[in-house]
């Protein structure tokens, strides 16, 4: 697209904004606009859009300022309440997950089934490529290892779920 500037464009625009266009008395400007493609575009587009703007303003029925102010206040209060609640609920969720982990670990310590061999721990040990000699000193089925291990595993599983459930707005 080639760009053609017209030195009288500013004059026309000034006449339009001042309400002096279209003014039949300004024959010189009329003659120029008829001959100049750039100014013809300015006149056509500006008159079309100013007519459209007047119509749009007549159509406009925005809600009253009192309603908009009231709704804004209500929304701000809601958002403030949500923002204040969020850290508390996250902490509550984490605490619940840790408590659950502790509870299950404690139950494992007290109940008889914890004495059965935990084959998955042995499989995990094998998968990690640790030799028996490396971990020979550690008895993974000992309650003193199982207790913190169970706590960690359960907390790792439940804490993200709890945080997700709490922070998911919809």
């Amino acid at each position, binding site marked *: *697209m080639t*760009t053609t*500037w017209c030195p009288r464009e500013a004059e026309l625009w000034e006449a339009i*904004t001042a309400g002096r266009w279209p003014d039949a008395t300004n024959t010189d400007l009329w003659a120029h606009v008829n001959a100049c493609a*750039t100014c*013809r*575009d*300015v006149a*056509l*587009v*500006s008159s*079309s*859009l*100013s*007519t*459209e*703007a007047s*119509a*749009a*303003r007549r*159509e*406009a*029925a*925005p*809600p009253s*300022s*009192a309603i*908009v*102010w009231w*709704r*804004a*206040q209500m*929304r*701000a209060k809601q958002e*403030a309440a949500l923002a204040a609640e969020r850290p508390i609920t996250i902490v509550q969720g984490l605490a619940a997950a840790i408590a659950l982990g502790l509870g299950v670990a404690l139950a494992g310590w007290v109940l008889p089934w914890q004495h059965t061999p935990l084959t998955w721990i042995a499989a995990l040990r094998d998968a990690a490529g640790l030799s028996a000699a490396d971990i020979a000193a550690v008895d993974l089925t000992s309650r003193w290892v199982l207790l913190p291990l169970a706590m960690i595993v359960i907390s790792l599983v439940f804490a993200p779920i709890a945080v997700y459930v709490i922070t998911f707005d919809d």
Partner: protein
Amino acid sequence: MPFAMDEQAFRAFYDRTAPALWAYLSRLSGDRQLADDLLQESYYRLLRSRETFEGEAHRRNYLFRIATNLVRDARRGRFGSWRNVPLPELPGQPEAFEDRADVKRALARLKPRDRALLWLAYAQGSSHSEIAGVLGVKTGSIKLLLHRARRRMAALLNGRRPEDGS
């Protein structure tokens, strides 16, 4: 976070600017219902902003900038393309209807930035620096952008195909 204005100042500012902002939103989006929603969202974001305003004009430009961004975001999410903007119903006489329908149709076929540029310049009479502030472009490039947008709009109003295919 407190609002950027008190109630009295807000209501006075709203009463002065809401009709023009609604007109801008409705013609930019082509959707009256969306214009209603975005109007309230624009004022809410203005109230929650941390911007320091030098005066009424600065605040008004900032409001229109928020509105422009909201329309762009809404259209990207809802329609995917500005070319599919529906034309609202138009009141008035049959002859006026035809003229205004042409204007609306031409507006709907323009690129969003061209539409905003032309509306701000010719419907609102904004200066180049005000338009630059609203659209987030350099003031020096407004003249050229406006010239090109005007040619496209004029071509559409005259029933011609714009030179760059817009």
